[in-house]
């Protein structure tokens, strides 16, 4: 099992969500984060002009079986892409085990009914 964590543009979230759902990735979790990177935004507040490097982003977390890793990443890479600075990153890491709280089961099977 793998965990995919993608940090993407807020404006791309709806597209990514729909692309994921239509690629049979039916479960995931996301939350708002602040990203610091090369992007900059110009701001003014009460006469102080400044450029902030803190950009609002969405972090999506998907845990999937190994065979689904490739296609899922492809979907995200394709849909979240604009080509401009600030597109974000995808991080992949290992997950040892997964439990379904509803059924109490664990292991690969929990992620199987995905489809």
């Amino acid at each position, binding site marked *: 099992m793998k965990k995919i964590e993608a940090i993407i543009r*807020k*404006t791309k979230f709806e597209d990514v969500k729909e692309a994921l759902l239509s690629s049979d990735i039916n479960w995931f979790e996301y939350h708002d984060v602040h990203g610091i990177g090369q992007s900059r935004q110009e701001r*003014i507040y009460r006469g102080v002009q400044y450029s902030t490097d803190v950009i609002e982003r969405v972090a999506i977390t998907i845990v999937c079986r190994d065979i689904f890793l490739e296609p899922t990443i492809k979907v995200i890479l394709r849909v979240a892409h604009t080509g401009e600075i600030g597109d974000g990153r995808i991080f992949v890491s290992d997950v040892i085990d997964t439990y379904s709280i509803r059924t109490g089961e664990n292991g690969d099977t929990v992620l199987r009914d995905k489809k």
Partner: protein
Amino acid sequence: MNEIGISLDTVWMLLAAILVFWMQPGFALCEAGFTRSKNTVNILMKNFVDFMFGSLLFFFVGFGFMFGSEGAGFIGMPNWGDLSFYKGELPVEGFLIFETVFCATSATIVSGAMAERTKFSMYLVYSACISLFIYPIEGHWTWGGGWLCNEASDSFMMSTFGDVFHDFAGSAIVHSVGGVLALIGAIFLGPRRGKYGKDGKSRAIPGHNLALASLGVFILWMGWFGFNPGSQLAASGEVNRIAISHVFLTTNLAAVAGGMATMFVTWIKYGKPSLSLTLNGVLAGLVGITAGCDLVSPVGAVIIGLVCGIVLVYSIEFIDHCLHIDDPVGASSVHGVCGILGTVMTGLLSTSNGAFYGYGWGFFGAECLGILCIDLWAAACGLVLFYGIKKLHGLRVDARIEDEGLDIYEHGETCYN
């Protein structure tokens, strides 16, 4: 006694002006609450700026266009900041303020329908135009003594219908004009990105703060107690004090009936009473009663409120689901449709000359012709204006700005930090 009576009338008028001014934050909060937080600064700014433009332009020019003489009942002379032409008993400065806040109300209605995607600079252009001539000219026809209100027995209206057009506080003049312009603006802009799916189905874009929107509606409701009763422009003497009391009562009953109608319709239709529509329902009742609040009975007011509250739900659905016009706050239904409805129903339910009370269809005809002319004027101006802006400069922000929010790109600041 007369001397002090005029003073009392002045106080009443100024109080009403304060209350109508107070509707500005009502509109601002309503619009801000019904839209997404990424555009809130832009929305607040628009609502400040249209009052600013409105106040200045109406003072310098619009007031004269509206109340000045000449022009065969079509348009007055611009006053260029000079108020001496006005000959009424009430102090002209107070009267100017009173009329200014009505003009600004008309201007601000449009903002909501065009929210979340309009270029700020182009909104300024639009806003200037409505305060400069669109509103003052049709205002001249009616409140300014123009052709729709010419009571001379040989006037066009009197000789055709035996009655003049009546719009007590502006269902037609203020609200329907705002509503029609809102609709046209929304058409020219096109829907917000993501509002309609590829299948053409309307999607919900929930407002970010219904508490603000609710406060906005309460503020508007309060302001309407200046808008309608204040339009009597007098409180002294038995006739006037009964009139303002009557108007106060009908205004409140219509608001209440409108809200209740909408609540129960949504309850039946969707299984749940919807706050987001009930808020509009209250406003629908208020807009509807505004034309005839002095002429209809309390029960008539309840009827107008109920009709507006019911029609509202279907109108919003029709404009959204069938016409695919994206009006984030429902301004075209609330102010446009219900403004027209209220004006027309006054012709039916007026206790002194309405068709349902056996006075024949003359007055009803006058109301229909009046609202038709006024809204055709608004529509024509809107078409020219928004078409022109669109061609010359573009009305809408880039997709990217729309996605990331107007606040950052247009104003460089965010509302919530």
